[in-house]
């Protein structure tokens, strides 16, 4: 598979009132054609900023990027605003968590979708409209003709997300960035949307970068996973290795603390103690050490680098080798 997007050592920092914060700190990963890569982590881990950095959607006056983002052989960070505009919604499309605020409430679905098609294809208005109906049909919305005449508020959350997907597909993108696209939806709708994304990915042969906080969603749709914590990649591997042999204590903690069918209802859930520090208080040494049940004194003393455990598995922990292969639930996380 060819690498579609190759992000190398991306750093994104903001100027704030209390000084500069680095929300994404040396992140590297790649997405190949036809591949679904998940970036998973909690709020503040930098997963959404990573997604927005790729399209450079952040306020340019206060944001600085460094590193490389090679898309189809060219570094997006060297592109000017005009060149980026041609990339956005054209070769790279994005769908968001909240489809309501991403749609304009005063225009019909048909108007907005036709507009999106016209922006990318040199065709007449009438054929653009029928292309729009086809796209809606592809996303599995019942009665696409009728939906075309409706306004965003007349649709359910799942239908709006399908419209957003149709809009993203209108340009036949090579890469689709999905930022928590199912978080606001009901579980039954979530399952449908995930299935739709997989089908469309195969049909369009696009790569998908899937941002989520939900390991269940990762297990469902991703091929490869990047786990982020406080701006850094802490673990990165293929989805089966991640679930079979999680190597980083944070990944293991996330898995253990999610209640599932196997959780013992009479016992307390294993937890990750404490809460995520703010980016203004990034701990020195290993950033997870204060919450980690395996932390050693030296974890706090030196910066921990990503360690290569196998050709396709990296983890930012000095004890990865010991942890790998043991069940996360038995980690004895503090109560």
């Amino acid at each position, binding site marked *: 598979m060819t690498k579609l997007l190759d992000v190398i050592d991306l750093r994104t920092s903001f100027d704030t009132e209390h000084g500069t914060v680095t929300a994404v700190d040396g992140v590297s990963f790649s997405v190949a054609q036809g591949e679904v890569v998940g970036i998973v982590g909690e709020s503040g881990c930098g997963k959404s900023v990573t997604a927005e950095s790729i399209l450079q959607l952040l306020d340019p006056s206060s944001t600085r990027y460094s590193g490389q983002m090679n898309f189809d052989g060219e570094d997006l960070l060297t592109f000017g605003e005009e060149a980026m505009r041609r990339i956005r919604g054209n070769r790279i499309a994005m769908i968001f968590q909240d489809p309501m605020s991403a749609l304009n409430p005063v225009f019909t679905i048909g108007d907005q979708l036709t507009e999106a098609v016209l922006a990318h294809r040199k065709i007449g208005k009438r054929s653009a409209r029928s292309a729009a109906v086809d796209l809606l049909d592809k996303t599995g919305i019942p009665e696409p003709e009728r939906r075309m005449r409706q306004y965003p508020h007349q649709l359910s959350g799942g239908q709006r997300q399908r419209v957003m997907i149709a809009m993203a597909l209108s340009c036949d993108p090579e890469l689709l960035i999905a930022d928590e696209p199912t978080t606001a939806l009901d579980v039954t709708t979530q399952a449908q949307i995930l299935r739709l994304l997989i089908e469309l990915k195969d049909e369009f042969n696009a790569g998908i970068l899937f941002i989520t906080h939900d*390991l269940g969603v990762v*297990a469902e749709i991703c091929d490869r996973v990047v786990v982020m914590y406080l701006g850094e990649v802490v673990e990165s591997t293929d989805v089966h290795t991640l679930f079979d042999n999680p190597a980083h204590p944070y990944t293991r903690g996330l898995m253990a603390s999610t209640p599932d069918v196997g959780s013992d209802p009479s016992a307390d859930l294993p937890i990750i103690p404490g809460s995520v520090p703010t980016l203004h208080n990034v701990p020195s040494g290993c950033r997870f050490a204060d919450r980690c049940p395996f932390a050693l004194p030296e974890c706090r003393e030196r910066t921990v680098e990503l360690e290569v455990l196998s050709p396709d598995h990296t983890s930012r922990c000095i004890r990865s080798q010991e942890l790998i292969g043991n069940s996360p639930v038995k980690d004895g996380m503090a109560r």
Partner: protein
Amino acid sequence: MTLEQTVLEARNLTKTFVTRSPMGRTVAETKAVDQVSLSLTAGRTYALVGESGSGKSTTGRLLQGLITPTAGEVIVSAADGSKLTQNTKRSNRDVQMIFQDPYSSLNPRRRIRSILEESLRIIGEKDPTTLRSKVDEALSAVGFSDEHAQRYPHEFSGGQRQRIGIARALVASPRIIICDEPVSALDVSIQAQILNLLRSLQADLGLAYLFITHDMSVVRYLAHRVGVMHQGKIVEEADTAELFANPQHDYTKRLLASVPIHHPSQRTTAKG
């Protein structure tokens, strides 16, 4: 506190929302809750599950007394055993609520101590020593100290705010707590902390919970009994283990089938 004691009973609750045109003509009637009956038991958790729009949140608000039912009644058994309905102007202290959004559920302009004292002032407590000691007690029950009480909500993280929300409900010494999606806005690593806290409080204080959620894994872990709501009705009600092992209603089956998997090997949607 005797276990297995019914503390709240809802009988045939129905709530119809009426949309009116500006001229006052009825445009549409929506039955948000349709003939719902359920009972809450001391020391037990009743989970109400369903998708958005199924009427589960409206049911929670009906039980709390925030909105009045179109038909049916809610009976709360008071501590002395006497039964109170809404008509007899029951004390709100018996039923407290925990909300989904830890950010907007705390007044940004008031300190934590004053937010908690407010709960007591509302039910008529004025004595400063009692206020102080009860607030301290509730704060320590959720793991906070006096130092935290002097701060404003914005100085806390989402999970910490949710614990303050729990303390606000606890401080009035309720017997029933209605938890409206209390962990769905929190980070995964924080959810378990809050769930554990809720469970240990229940064990210590014999609280009855109505747990409104769409997350079946949380239900499985926390609930004793489950009611599945669909289009305003409870379509299935059973003990938790029974419901998961042997779902009867089509909708329950669909809901269980949509629960996120825990390992990629369980995939059904895509190629492996």
